[in-house]
């Protein structure tokens, strides 16, 4: 169970997140949509403390963090309970595909390296990249890099997986394979919070869609309500533009 209360983030004078309240049940797959610059990415980044929220509380699993008083230890605990898939993949450039996945297991979780290596190979097989285990990111296509990025986030076994526009930086030819992998992750009933512009994908896998505008969640509900029978005017306008 993920519980967010009053999450607020300001950059200078601009309020990017304006007191977000959000509950996500275990195994729920939530998609966030909305115009750019409305705080979707910031929401994800604040949940992982890549951006430090100014106020609010975040609970993931048994970790609860009060943003205003977060200690270093709490932040690490929160990050270890969540995993993050980046728009630009952000694979460790000095590590092979296998090592990218092992890194979190060995360095952060303290697993023995043989066990971690086995798990990394399993994950790579799941992502269809078993033959790329010893390739460095620079030698992989965008789609392959993002699949390793998702594999890295999967391997951690986090309570919550965060996807920040995982297909936006990809050439169109690679989008399909990344969405396929995300579908497989979703089928395992992994709790996911996904920012994306892929409306068809949202319709398929989301239990719930959130529409954000101006740092708030304006409308929320199952895809057939939010995407097919929108009530809010801004949401209607947004959907006309993207579909």
């Amino acid at each position, binding site marked *: 169970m993920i519980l967010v209360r009053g999450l607020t983030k300001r950059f200078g004078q601009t309020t990017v997140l304006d007191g977000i309240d959000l509950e996500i049940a275990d195994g729920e797959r939530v998609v966030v949509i909305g115009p750019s610059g409305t705080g979707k990415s910031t929401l994800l980044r604040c949940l*992982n403390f890549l951006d430090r929220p100014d106020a609010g509380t975040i609970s993931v699993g048994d970790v609860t963090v009060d943003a205003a008083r977060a200690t270093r230890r709490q932040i690490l605990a929160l990050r270890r309970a969540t995993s993050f898939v980046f728009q630009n993949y952000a694979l460790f450039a000095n590590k092979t595909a296998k090592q990218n996945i092992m890194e979190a297991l060995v360095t952060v979780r303290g697993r023995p390296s043989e066990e971690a290596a086995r798990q990394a190979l399993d994950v790579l097989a799941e992502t269809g990249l078993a033959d790329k285990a010893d390739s460095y990111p620079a030698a992989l296509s965008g789609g392959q890099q993002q699949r390793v990025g998702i594999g890295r986030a999967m391997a951690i076994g986090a309570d919550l997986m965060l996807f920040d526009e995982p297909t936006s930086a990809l050439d169109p030819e690679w989008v399909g394979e990344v969405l396929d992998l995300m579908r497989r992750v979703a089928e395992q009933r992994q709790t996911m919070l996904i920012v994306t512009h892929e409306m068809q994908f949202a319709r398929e896998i989301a239990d719930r869609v959130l529409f954000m505008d101006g740092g708030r969640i304006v409308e929320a509900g199952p895809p057939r309500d939010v995407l097919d029978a929108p009530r809010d005017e801004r949401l209607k306008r947004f959907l006309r533009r993207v579909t």
Partner: protein
Amino acid sequence: MRPLDLDYMLGLVPVILGYVPLTLFMAAVAMVCALVLASLLAVERVIRVPGLDWLVMLFISFFRGTPLLVQLFLFYYGLPQVLSFLAQINGVTAAIMGLTLHFSAYMAEAIRAAITGVDRSQWEAAQSIGMTQGQMMRRIVLPQAGRIAAPTLVNYFIDMIKGTSLAFTLGVTEMMGATQKEASGSFLYFEAFLVVAILYWIIVETLNQGQKRLEIYLNKAYAR
């Protein structure tokens, strides 16, 4: 112009070669120590530990702002007069200390620049999986910064090898000191210093070849 005494020069080569190990030893030890110290200084400059920052800046400013020779004299002839536990310090140790401190100040700036050159997404990826600041630096940022800084650091290493010649002013008989002694015995200054110059040159050129291989090795992960 008198002809060069080639026989004397050839005879001098093995004599000076005998001191190459000491020269390389001083440079290698100082390089390792300087790398460690410079990395610490550079990381501090990037993350800015409150209360430590001004000290690090002062350190870097002093050791970049004063001549190496002055620093060596300060350590070897000066400091033991104020700090009695340094009274037994020998020339080799003082030279290694001086080279370490002097070059770590330069290298810290090179490494700092390289650290800031590592893509921001690499830091965020490390943070996102819950690495501590130390783990992130050691495992992700510094290795990538090392690759960026490598050519500059090799340059400093070359400077350092040549810098060991100043150790002769502290009474250390290394390549330069040995040559000086030989020359003052034979009075064939030109021949003697020409031989030692060529030997330094050969050492540095060998290193340049090594640098090319090092760069190929470091770029292995980044080849498309």
